[in-house]
């Protein structure tokens, strides 16, 4: 049967006032949750790549001359090691800048607190436990006060937090989908009961359930498309606002949170999926509710 005729079987009202809004809010929230989760994912994997082979050596020694000597020895030994790709002693000025927020301006002539020297190094492979132990014993003789840490270790809790945030986003998306399906179900059921008398007449004149499902589906289609597009725009706007807030921090880590095209594809799929789910739910609801004994 032709679509246009099917629509003339029931009054051409839309699903009702709140339906496009409900769909818009759902889509906006899902876009936001998806965008956030994907951003976190990018961020975590970029950070992981950067940090996987990085180690920091601290030379904790109160005497500045001894500290200087051990630092030089550390740099020399590490540079000589063939499994170390790059070594850099963090200059004093950088250290001061790092600590300034906590300790205030430091007088280089008479530092009130002994500050450890730092040497950053990047390994060829990942900074595994065994690798750290090997380097520690390498430094033991010439730089007894050196302490090695894999940078990834410091960020362990951060990665764990990111993982749980991603789970949270997934649960959120699932809950929003469930709520959306429920809303469409209720609206379709409502449409059926409002038009119960007409539907009975259509049945008696030989109309079948699929014709009625098409009418309800068509009414839902308008609402779903309007709601999804509006929600998508809202969600993107929110994502962009959040993104620019983070970008303002100019943190190296957050800069890695940029989404690649695959992520954008997933985000664009959100309103498309929302429309499809709304239409399928409407159809399924009608066919299920109309299937009754004669």
């Amino acid at each position, binding site marked *: *049967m032709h679509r246009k005729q099917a629509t003339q*079987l029931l009054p051409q009202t839309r699903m009702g006032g709140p339906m496009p809004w409900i769909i818009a809010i759902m889509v906006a929230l899902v876009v936001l949750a998806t965008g956030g989760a994907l951003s976190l994912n990018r961020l975590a994997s970029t950070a992981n790549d950067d940090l996987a082979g990085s180690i920091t050596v601290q030379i904790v020694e109160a005497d500045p001359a001894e500290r200087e000597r051990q630092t030089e020895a550390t740099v020399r030994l590490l540079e000589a090691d063939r499994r170390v790709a790059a070594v850099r002693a963090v200059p004093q000025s950088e250290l001061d800048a790092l600590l300034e927020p906590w300790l205030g301006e430091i007088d280089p002539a008479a530092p009130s607190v002994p500050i450890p020297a730092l040497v950053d190094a990047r390994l060829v492979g990942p900074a595994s436990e065994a690798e750290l132990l090997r380097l520690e014993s390498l430094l033991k003789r010439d730089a007894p006060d050196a302490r090695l840490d894999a940078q990834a270790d410091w960020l362990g809790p951060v990665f764990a937090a990111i993982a749980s945030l991603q789970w949270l986003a997934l649960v959120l998306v699932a809950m929003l989908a469930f709520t959306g399906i429920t809303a469409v179900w209720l609206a379709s059921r409502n449409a059926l009961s409002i038009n119960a008398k007409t539907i009975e*007449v259509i049945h*008696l*004149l030989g109309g079948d359930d699929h014709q009625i499902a098409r009418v309800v589906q068509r009414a839902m289609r308008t609402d779903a498309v309007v709601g999804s597009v509006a929600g998508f725009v809202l969600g993107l706007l929110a994502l962009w606002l959040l993104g620019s807030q983070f970008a303002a921090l100019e943190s190296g880590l957050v800069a890695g949170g940029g989404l690649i095209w695959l992520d954008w594809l997933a985000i664009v799929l959100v309103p498309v999926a929302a429309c499809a789910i709304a239409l399928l739910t409407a159809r399924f609801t009608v066919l299920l509710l109309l299937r009754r004994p004669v």
Partner: protein
Amino acid sequence: MMDSDDPIVHLDNVGLRYGTDKEVLSGVSCSLDAGRFYFLTGASGAGKTSLLKILYLAQTPSRGAMRMFGTDMLTIPQSRLPEFRRRLGVVFQDFRLVEHMSAYDNIALPLRVAGVRERDLAEPVEDMLSWVGLEHRARAKPATLSGGEQQRVAIARAVISRPDMLVADEPTGNVDPDMAMKLLSLFYALNRLGTTIVVATHDLNLVRQMPDATIMRLDKGRLMDPTGALRYPPRAERPAGKRELYDRAMRPTIGFVKADEHDSGDDSVAADVEAAEKRGWEMP
């Protein structure tokens, strides 16, 4: 699919009860031949609408057997009902016009349901509108039509798709005698084109106009058929030796009045009905 000699409807010992109440139809057996004209009469509450509901596939009998168009209606899947309903035209006792649709759209509804294209609709719908004298009310919603006008829309909707069988429940209840005659002649014309017609009515005048019609009379849910026109199998096919037995078995449930087997006078049907009323619809 169906032999041309096959009855269009065959009911065998059909009973109907709503919920757990007592039966409103019991032991109804009849066979309606394709192309004939039937009147269904009986007092208010006798079960006319209930029997028609079974015929227009809105109600499943609670017992008995039922064949229509050569198909067993009690065992077909629900998904096949629409295809049979589209072969029927129905005038509901309460019209059942769709409130939000104009007279035009109500009349067009069966064609739209059957998938007729929009540009092929206008002509038949306008024809029907003028047939029932409502061209000037085409755009009116049912609520703004008089009772008789609504009834005419309901009739136009029932006949527009040229159904194999037309089932009309008190189709002239709300119109003046002239309009009633006009509508009857519409049914007659349709009948001439081959449509089987079943009309439930109280109106003996109407019955009197159709001397060829077979009259079915319901009395407290039982079908009276004193001369056996509604019997099944058709008389000719009945095994000769068992005829007596068959007649005796069917006697309690079937009754009949048939116009053309008596005399050809104008008032023969009505006379039969009236005579039968006096006798209390016993067998002659």
